[in-house]
């Protein structure tokens, strides 16, 4: 077990190194330069030439990469955003919690609703509940996330006025951002109005972002429950005369949740992709909008740090999921 964890952690090193090279080279292959994005309508060719020259693009790319690696690893300096001219680390500290908060809320929504849905679908296998939930889940994964977000926003925020339409918090509320997880910040400050407001801001984006995972979780739960139901130990438990409720909760559901837990890890990537679109629609200042803007503005330091960071998170989440899976399920052995 320990060997497996160590091995997986060591594997991170080449992946991150490779990724950093890939991102570095790739970013420099983008046409245009960051300076040009600052000039706007008043750009003159002379101005652009001047800024380009300042960019020190004369260095061969491997030297640029070596320099970059040196500052990042040795000084732990992620650089300064070219557009906002602030420390990338500072921006990351603001942006990342926003996305995590959204992703967790979406996960909560999808798991909280998906597991019961999948479970009941399996229980009523072939029945109307089953068919409806299957079709609904398929429709769920067939709707473009931004389309759903736009519709939700228009109906529930603009028409009905039940939820706010933009941002993470009402700007009239002053909440000291200590952790930048606003939910936590509100709890620390014991500001229940703020907490309620922050949660209200989370509802629509979380539903939009959680729609696809919801469909997937429901389907996988259903499939897993169907599988487990025919296992010997479940039959034995039933034969022993245990009440169906106890069989369901002790044996069926618990074992069926194993495959569901792996899926949660895999959804990290999906949620981060979806966050780009959801954050755009709801104007939430998170990683998604941050990185999309950075791509348009050729904000090299932000791109480099942001993409690497997300990848590390993604890889780590999957590692944690794999490890916990191994712990929960001793049948799986990891050979080295």
């Amino acid at each position: 077990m320990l060997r497996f964890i160590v091995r997986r952690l060591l594997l991170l090193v080449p992946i991150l190194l490779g990724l950093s090279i890939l991102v570095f080279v790739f970013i420099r292959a983008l046409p245009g330069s960051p300076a040009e994005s600052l000039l706007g309508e008043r750009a003159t060719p002379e101005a652009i030439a001047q800024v380009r020259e300042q960019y020190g693009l004369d260095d061969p790319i491997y030297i640029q990469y070596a320099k970059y690696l040196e500052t990042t690893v040795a000084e732990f300096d992620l650089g300064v955003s070219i557009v906002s001219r602030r420390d990338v680390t500072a921006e990351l500290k603001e942006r990342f919690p926003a996305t995590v908060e959204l992703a967790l809320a979406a996960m909560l929504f999808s798991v909280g609703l998906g597991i019961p849905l999948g479970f009941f679908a399996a229980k009523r296998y072939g029945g109307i509940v089953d068919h409806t939930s299957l079709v609904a889940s398929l429709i769920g994964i067939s709707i473009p996330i931004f389309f759903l977000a736009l519709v939700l926003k228009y109906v529930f925020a603009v028409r009905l006025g039940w939820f706010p339409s933009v941002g993470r918090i009402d700007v009239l509320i002053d909440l000291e951002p200590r952790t930048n997880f606003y939910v936590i910040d509100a709890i620390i400050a014991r500001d229940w109005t703020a907490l309620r407001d922050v949660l209200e801001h989370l509802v629509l984006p979380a539903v939009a972002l959680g729609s696809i995972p919801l469909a997937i979780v429901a389907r996988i739960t259903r499939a897993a429950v169907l599988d487990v139901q025919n296992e010997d130990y479940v039959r034995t438990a039933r034969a022993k005369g245990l009440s169906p409720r106890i069989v369901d909760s002790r044996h069926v559901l618990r074992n069926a949740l194993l495959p569901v837990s792996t899926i949660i890890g895999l959804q990290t990537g999906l949620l981060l992709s979806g966050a780009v679109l959801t954050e755009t629609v709801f104007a939430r200042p998170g990683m998604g909008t941050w990185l999309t803007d950075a791509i348009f503005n050729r904000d090299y330091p932000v791109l480099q740090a942001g993409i690497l960071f997300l990848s590390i998170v993604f890889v780590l989440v999957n590692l944690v999921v794999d490890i916990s899976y191994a712990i929960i399920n001793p049948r799986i052995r990891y050979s080295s």
Partner: protein
Amino acid sequence: MARRLRKPVALLAVALVALTAASLGGAGHQSRTLVFGASRDPLILDPILVSDGESLRPIRQIFEGLMTVVPGTARVGPSLARSFKASNKGRTYTFALRKGVRFHDNTQFNAQAVCFNFKRWYNFKGPFQSSAATSYWQSIFGGFQTTVGNTSAPVGQQQSLFRSCQVVNRYTARINLTRPSASFIGALSLPSFSISSPAALRRYEADKAELRGGSPVFTGSYGFEHPTGTGPFRFESWRRGERLTLARFSRYWGPKAHLSRIIFRPITTNAGRLQALQTGEVQGYDLVDPQDMATIRSNRSLRLLNRPQFNVAYVAINQQQEPMNRLAVRQAVAYGLDRQAVIRSSIYAGRGEVAHAFMPPSLPGYAKNVKKYKYDPARSRRLLQGAGLRLPVRIEFWYPSGVQRPYMPDPPRIFQAFAASLERAGFDVVPRSAPWSPDYLNAAQTGKAGHLHLLGWTGDYADADNFLGEFFQAPKPQWGFNNRAIHRILERAEAETNTKKRTALYQQANRQIMQFLPGIPYAHTKPALGFQTRVRGYIASPVSLEPFRLVFYGGGT
């Protein structure tokens, strides 16, 4: 522990299922605060370092310059300078300064502060000489005292218009120029030339910057956390992507602001800003989409505010691209653009008029008797055939994506309408597009945006030089031509201090330009802002920079 975790979960579930969340609609909880929907964050709040509208809007509230644009007009009027006198044939300007003005850090505004700021700008070094940092200074004043390092661009090398600043006495400052300039006073109304507190500039290291990876990176905290001017609002806090908060300055020299706070809230999409206005999450936003105007009008708690027209939208022609160097082909483009149809359509929703010149009709120097080009596709085809070209003539036509400008509310739609009309006129249009910033602007300015591209300009102050001079005073890759006659007449006009002669020169230039057809102007527009009805006192400005000092909440809620 479990209990604590369960609470937010339960709350979320309640919110989800019961959907009983409090309605946000309409009423302001703190009615003295105005939330304004911006399209994005400012870049930095050091006036001299920016030229973009989203940075200049809050800067206009925090800072003041010697001159200002009179609210609701493009006319230049006094601000921190009560009056000025020109002497030495327009090479020397003496300013009588307002007394009893304080900066937000409670230091005094005086002639020394004025000269400190001018000297700061003139003595900028290294990263600050990048035109990414000081584009307005460079476009108005040219160069710096010394050019340092490798910032050896031609822009910075021209002799600066600025020579020196003298403190005549405590409240009199004199600025000497190296040559006469008639547009100097107008330029001083640009918010970029606002006066900062010398103490704060020093204290918060406004001049600290370095070149990192070659781009200017400002490492001082002045422009991010401590912008300090004399304006009616002072900087309070700034949380990126969420809010920039300004608070009323209680020791403002003039009539104090009605609002206690302004919050600028970035919302990227126009549809998002409209919706936030409808839900009451913002109380106003700029550049209402023409198709949304009916929505706002039909809502009694919302209203539209019109901004006087002070811009021009044009189709630029790049003469470096064959066969655009031929006049007949350019004329064919002019006759082949159905400008009337575009202006009449809901793209402009009755807020535009067809442009016949590269400057707005309201400015002195505008000429009515220029050559006009009415949509005539048959004539275009004849012109092209007469030039010995085989129809259809293939041309690349660029338009920007992901942007709307006051003069160009919906670029893809304008492009499609024009492309269709050009195809009827004997052209084969190849569409090309790029994100507005930086790709599109870069392509346009470096002459890489095909045969034709869409662009435009909003004036900064009431001076023909700010339009015609900006476009055609010197050869530019964007247009790809070198027409001595046109360049010369605009140079002469800029230096001419006699108003009558100056006007005549610009009129002549307009006529020559529309004969030569470096591009085809197509629209002057009246952009609109959307507000909640109870917001009063917002005086829309043609130059797009409104003072929030005058804004207040009217009766009702």
